[in-house]
């Protein structure tokens, strides 16, 4: 079985983000880049399948600049077999364009299962994996919390709005994954050394991308004002209830 896991490199979620002087980009100095957390959960699911069946081959696909290679090496150290780096120094904003580029790459191989994180925590677009399903005519189950493979079928759970939807599909299929139930693995130094021997194939993105939107500006959200401390013990409870009931009228 061939599994592809598509990952994106994003700023670490603990990063303090600073808008550059042009008001259109983030100051990259001092930012630590990591694999998008949801993509890591997706990769973990693939690795767990491989733990049980060594014949499974895992290919990582990532679009982005040179620095992405570092994340790809990490995924190889975690247990993936090979990586494809679709290299570009251009910031591609339109998801439909990103999806088209990755869809073209996926088409080149026969994957039985293609995994994505449900969204990237930088742009929060929540759409690329699903779009690729439509572009390549592959069944996609989005926002899955868990899935299992039974023969040529995949059964996946979507935990949405208080219920669990159980979807079923034939393989090949695309899954976009929620935060999983499984703990992530961390590569050892030995794994990292061994990963250097695994292949990363670099492919250049063909240029002339039809840009459809224009980024006008970035800004910080309005800052919340510091509130008041009502008190320091249980006697403050009555006051809190009064405020919520009478002033705020929200309970």
């Amino acid at each position, binding site marked *: 079985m061939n599994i592809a896991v598509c990952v994106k490199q994003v*700023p670490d*979620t603990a990063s303090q983000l600073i*808008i550059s002087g042009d008001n259109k980009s983030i100051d990259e100095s001092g930012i630590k880049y990591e694999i998008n*957390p949801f993509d890591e959960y997706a990769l973990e699911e693939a690795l767990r399948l491989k733990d049980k069946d060594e014949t499974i081959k895992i290919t990582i696909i990532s679009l982005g600049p040179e620095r992405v290679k570092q994340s790809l090496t990490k995924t190889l150290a975690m247990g993936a077999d090979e990586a494809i780096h679709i290299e570009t120094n251009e910031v591609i904003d*339109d*998801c*439909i364009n990103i*999806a088209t580029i990755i869809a073209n790459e996926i088409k080149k191989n026969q994957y039985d299962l293609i995994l994505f994180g449900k969204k990237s925590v930088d*742009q929060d*677009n929540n*759409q*690329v994996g*699903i*779009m*690729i*399903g*439509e572009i390549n*005519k592959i069944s*996609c189950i*989005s*926002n899955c*919390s868990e899935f299992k493979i039974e023969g040529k079928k995949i059964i996946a759970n*979507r*935990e949405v*709005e*208080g*219920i*669990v*939807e*159980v*979807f*079923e*599909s034939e393989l090949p*299929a695309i899954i976009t994954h929620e*935060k999983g139930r499984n703990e992530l693995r961390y590569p050892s130094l030995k794994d990292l050394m061994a990963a250097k021997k695994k292949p990363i194939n670099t492919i250049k993105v063909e240029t002339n991308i039809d840009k459809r*939107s*224009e*980024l*006008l500006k970035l*800004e*910080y*959200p309005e800052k*919340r004002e*510091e*509130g*008041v*401390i*009502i*008190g*320091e*013990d*249980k006697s*403050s*409870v*009555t006051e*809190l*209830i009064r405020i*919520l009931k009478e002033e705020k009228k*929200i*309970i």
Partner: protein
Amino acid sequence: MGGILSIIEAKNKEIKNSSLEVLSESQKIANTKDLENNVVILGEYEENNSNQINEFGINKVLLGATNKIENYSPDLYKNIILNLIEKFEPEIIIFSGSAIGKDISPRIAANMNYNLVTECIEIKVEENGYEIKRPIYAGKIIQTLKFNNNPIVLSLKSNYFSINKVEQKDFSFEQVNNEEIGNIISPVLKEIIQPQKETLDVSEASIIVAGGRGIKEPENFKLIEELADVLNAAVGASRAVVDAGWRPHSEQVGQTGKIVSPNLYIAIGISGAIQHQVGMINSKCIVAINKDKNAPIFKFADYGIVGDLFEIIPELISELKK
């Protein structure tokens, strides 16, 4: 040609709140640009229930799959919407930020080769297109994007827009033909598992009571649940207690959980790390209860009580019950 296609969802024969937000926003755009606003209702719905959608300046209501299925089917929904796009050639297609909206909008955009802009928080009509604001980096930054007049698909951030009504023109109902579904590629919904206990989901609740590591033991979450019960609130959780296996991931609020904006968010024993903060900072009112007066949460909570939650919460519950 041109005009708006608003995609509305019904559940248990009622229009979902997130869809009313779509009607309210699409009405504004229709009015500013003098566009026709056609609305399709997907899911279980009855025509004579139309008082809910009476005052949004709608031109035509199309009923799709309303009598056929009560549950989500990506192929059926996709087919209906794509047929309507072909018929009306809308310049703007608006979805809600519901679970279905999140799943179906990329399918539509990809099929039409249109741009999809998710989590929109402001849509401004400009002379030659739209200017749209949306949060990125879980809301640490807001971006403004400009789109020219090419057709576009949008989905709104849920619980973000106020629902404004206008005087209604007459509108007609039309049943959409959904007999033919070609090109089936999507997965099929086999089963819906209902929760053992009827619980409110954090992404839909107007009040959330959330607990963090300060709760100390998983059993102590009973206190949080009890307070949530009294307030008719959803239970939320910090990443720490979800990772520890005390609570399900569906309750997690934050960057790798849900991003919520209820009317009231009560954070109990939650320190307020940046990854949690971004998930709840847009709540209308934030109350923090924490014994550490230096906890970051007090920097952005509207009201705080510094103290032992094991004394304060039982008191709060018994006072609220009075």
